[in-house]
């Protein structure tokens, strides 16, 4: 984590290259991302498990309540615009590949704040109708931006295991 932050500051150049490479990989998964069907889910998510580091999450996801409904990227990539989806894929693709290659990551992975925010929004992307009543705010938060408001009611706080109980 700390290493990633350092990198973020120091190697903007790498990031730009990565966005380019990542985008190519990303377009593929994202374009198919709106197709339906369990077979798609499986193969799409399988591509994450190309890294054995992700195998545990993949196995847990298959068994999870969402294994039949949502692929990795339904929860782990933004839904608001194609641009941010590409950026996300490039960013994650770069950092995950880097970490994987160097082997420099912690035993138990932790979702980063950047990705947590994406996942938080992903829940609402599918469940907005169900949760609209509970998505109210405290008085003091009424004037803050929409994104901050959403985060103040964190779904993951209670439902951290819906995608995979690892």
């Amino acid at each position, binding site marked *: 984590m700390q290493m990633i932050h350092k990198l973020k500051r120091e190697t903007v150049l790498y990031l730009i290259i990565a966005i380019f490479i990542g985008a190519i990989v990303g377009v593929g998964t994202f374009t198919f991302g709106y197709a339906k069907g369990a077979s798609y889910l499986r193969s799409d998510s399988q591509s994450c498990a190309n890294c054995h580091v992700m195998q545990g999450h993949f196995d847990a996801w298959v068994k999870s309540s969402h294994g039949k409904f949502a692929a990795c990227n339904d929860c782990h990539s933004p*839904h*608001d615009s194609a641009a941010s989806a590409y950026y996300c894929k490039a960013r994650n693709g770069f950092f995950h590949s880097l970490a994987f290659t160097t082997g420099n990551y912690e035993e138990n992975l932790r979702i980063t704040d950047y990705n947590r925010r994406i996942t938080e*929004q992903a829940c*609402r*992307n599918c469940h*907005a*109708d*169900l*949760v*609209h*009543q*509970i*998505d*109210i*705010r*405290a*008085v*003091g*938060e*009424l004037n803050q931006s*929409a*994104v901050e*408001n*959403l985060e*103040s*009611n*964190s779904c993951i*706080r*209670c*439902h951290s*295991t819906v995608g995979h*109980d690892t």
Partner: protein
Amino acid sequence: NIFERQQEARTTVLKVVDIDDNTADPAVWGRNFPLQYDDYLKTVDMIQTTYGGSEAIPRTPTDEDPRDLVSRSKIERIPQLKRLWAGYAFSKDYREKRGHAYMLTDQIYTERQKVGQPGTCIHCHASTYVPMKELGEGDIHAGFEKLNALPYMEAKAHVKHPVACIDCHEPETMALRITRPAFMEGIAAFKKSQGVQDYDVNRDATRQEMRSFVCGQCHVEYYFQGDEKRLTYPWTEGLTVDAAYSHFESSGFKDWTHAETGAPMLKAQHPEFELWSQGIHSRAGVACADCHMAYKRVGAMKISDHHIRSPLLNVNAACGTCHKTGDQELIARTENIQARHQKLVKIALDAVIDLIDDINAAKANGVAEDKMKAAQQWQRKATFYVDYVEAENSSGFHAGQEAARILAESIDCSRKGQNALRE
């Protein structure tokens, strides 16, 4: 865009009636929010858990007290309490708390009223937002002062409902808000002790904090300060029992004088908010509403369960999303903490009683003034500490280790008090 969607979805709440900042009656709000209202009404239910909840005890209504159901008497069940509070109204009548529906009636008919209580009491036992606004001509703080100054029986004529929607919600957006002046002041004093100046709870609190703060308006230790009996939460030095005790020491405040020993006493009342704040759940960001108002699904909607009650009557929803062990095991874990706690409470209560006995004996046999003073001071502290966790309603669950620590210190004080008489 997610925000748009949210707005869109929000409009599906059918506005049947207009609600504004003067609509006190929850039934009116209930027409727009029937699901929440239905649950809200269920707080009349009385169900006992092993250590909490409440049991309905039938009684024959009298002219003086028309209630046909009351909760169990705690002073009968825990006889040490009568002597703990000798000379104070609590030794006459102190019962298990029960659902919000009863808050007004139970306050009106408790025998503690016989000593003549101030209007201040009403702050936590009724929907006071509109009454305060009216009395204060738009200013709830001014209204609060006026309500406090009335004798209870006059003050009560100004209120109608138990805590209602308007006491926790801003009617326009349904956002949570704080309506209680004593909490606004208390939490600002606490934040100041933490280095935060000019804290305005309705401006500065996060939504997740609000999900506990709305309860912290009432479920806290309090006292009546000064001659005007101003309702105050003793948080100037922090939220721990030590901070509260130290707050009282610095002003030399006392609630009453002990009838047997003559010690200047303090009464601790229901510090759920404070004890919770010292526990692991609070540290992990788990709010009162998370457990006591767990989400429930009703049809196509997910709502907060407004049937506020013991989470042990609703374990699956209240604990289950975070703890994947079965319901029975969760109850067992909780009761394990509570059983250990209650055993220790008994030891601490017995220790205070031993001290009271010894002071009485020393009085009878004669003892030096300074020894007596010292013993009384220990009695004051020991009682406040054990009362703090006894009056707290989770039987230690909200912060198990901290509660045991407080009891350990109470025991130390009681026994030191006994020694002080003999040194």
